[in-house]
């Protein structure tokens, strides 16, 4: 009996969905907009995370040595730093490499190149580029370098400067700005999502309001609550599924179109390739939201008319 009932409820729901064209069109459209907004939330939090990670990767420490420092001393320090548990990678840039990179960077600026020639010798010190395993560990690495551990064998320091402290303030500030901008964006999209969920909810309530007389007739021929409610919930679920599929489909050209823009705006974040990579995740969020909103609004809305 249960299966017969279930079959009847499903069939009735599907027929109602199919036959009530205008109502179906309105509900599915509203629901699609809602799900697009929910999709926006998923993307905006992804953008936040990627941008922050990208920024954190940009943090490193450059230790510049005085020009007279011997390569042996520098390599000694390199070994000491590498033995620190917080450090993941240390790259050694020789004086010559530093000069070549500098010339390369200023290849269009003749006056700087001329000044270098005038100088006759290489004014740049060798550099150790240090990367920590975690951004929070840079402070302790920098302190280590500032301290007495990095002295040469001669007992005087060969380190010219450590650039961590200058960069840190800039990076911290940028991180804060991005985080708060994204929080604001998130709050806005959440607000939009709540509003559109309410609109979707009301649209479905309206469709049930239109059927209130029929619901009372069903009551009077002795149909049970579940048997009346069932098809409406099924219709709500179908709205959710169809709107969800439409949303996923619409996101394809939309993210493709936005892809190159986001890539240049947020460091290397291409919204289109993100969408493709995380398709299953996003699809399940959207489909679940659609089905949930559809079923819940139907179930709640119909209760009012079932009291006969």
């Amino acid at each position, binding site marked *: *009996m249960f299966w*017969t*009932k279930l079959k*009847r409820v499903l069939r*009735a729901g599907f*027929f*109602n969905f199919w*036959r*009530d064209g205008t109502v179906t069109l309105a509900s599915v459209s509203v629901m699609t907009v809602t799900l697009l907004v929910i999709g926006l939330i998923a993307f905006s939090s992804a953008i936040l995370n990627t941008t922050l990670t990208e920024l954190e990767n940009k943090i490193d420490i450059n230790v510049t040595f005085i020009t007279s420092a011997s390569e042996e001393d520098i390599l000694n320090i390199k070994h000491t730093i590498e033995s620190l548990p917080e450090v993941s990678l240390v790259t050694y840039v020789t004086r010559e490499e530093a000069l070549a990179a500098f010339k390369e960077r200023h290849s269009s600026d003749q006056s700087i190149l001329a000044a270098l020639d005038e100088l006759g010798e290489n004014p740049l010190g060798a550099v150790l580029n240090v990367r920590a395993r975690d951004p929070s560990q840079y402070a302790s690495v920098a302190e280590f370098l500032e301290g007495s551990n990095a002295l040469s064998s001669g007992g005087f320091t060969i380190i010219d400067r450590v650039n961590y402290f200058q960069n840190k303030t800039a990076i911290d500030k940028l991180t804060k700005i991005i985080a708060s901008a994204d929080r604001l964006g998130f709050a806005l999209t959440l607000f939009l999502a709540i509003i559109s969920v309410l609109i979707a909810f009301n649209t479905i309530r309206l469709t049930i309001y239109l059927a209130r*007389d*029929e619901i009372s*007739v*069903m*009551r*009077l*021929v*002795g*149909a*049970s*609550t579940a*048997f009346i409610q069932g098809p409406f919930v099924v219709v709500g679920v179908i709205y959710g599924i169809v709107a969800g599929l439409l949303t996923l489909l619409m996101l394809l050209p939309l993210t493709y179109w936005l892809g190159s823009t986001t890539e240049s705006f947020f460091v290397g974040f291409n919204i289109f390739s993100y969408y493709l990579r995380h398709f299953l995740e996003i699809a399940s969020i959207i489909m679940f939201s659609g089905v949930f909103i559809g079923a819940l609004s139907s179930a709640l809305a119909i209760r009012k008319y079932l009291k*006969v």
Partner: protein
Amino acid sequence: MIVFDRVSKIYPDSSVALEEVTLSIEPKEFISIVGPSGAGKTTLLKLFLAEEKPTQGAVYYDSVNVHTLGKKEINEFRRKVGMVFQDFRLLSTKTVYENIAFTMEAAGRADEEIESDVPHVLELVDLTPKVWNFPRELSGGEKQRVAIARALVNEPDIIIADEPTGNLDPANTYDIVQILKKINDLGTTVILATHNKGIIDLLKRRVVAMDRGRIVRDDRSGKYFE
């Protein structure tokens, strides 16, 4: 047997719809309830179906007070009663066949029963060619015949018809009354609420006249008094 025992219905705005109504209806009876609009005919029927509760008194069906029934029992009780309304009240998104099948599905009848009974009952009301039409594609008389078929298909003990001919022309009215008569002859109690004098004279069955919430006459011979 249906018994209304000193039933009163007073609405919250203190308008009195029924006042101390006592009435009993025997099984297999054909009873007409007549009276002007606002006499309390529809309220009486609503109280019987437990759509509304009486302010005082009780309504019994086979010695059970229908207002003490639980939700599930009310559903089962309503399946024993077929309803026909003045405005037909068909389900607009369902075909003729589905409208009738819905009642059977709601009662939990098997698919095979539905497939054999629906065509049968449609034949009884002479609507076989319209089986796949939607209500909007039918005339008033046809809609009412679908409604009657729907009321009949679960083989109810009682058929309640509330102004079933109110929206119909004389020819269709005559048809509907003949169908109701036929149903009664087959052994179903019929309660007909109407203010159509012609119908009463045609039927020659028991007539209960109501006015302003009271029963003013109960006549076995079947005459409509002005």
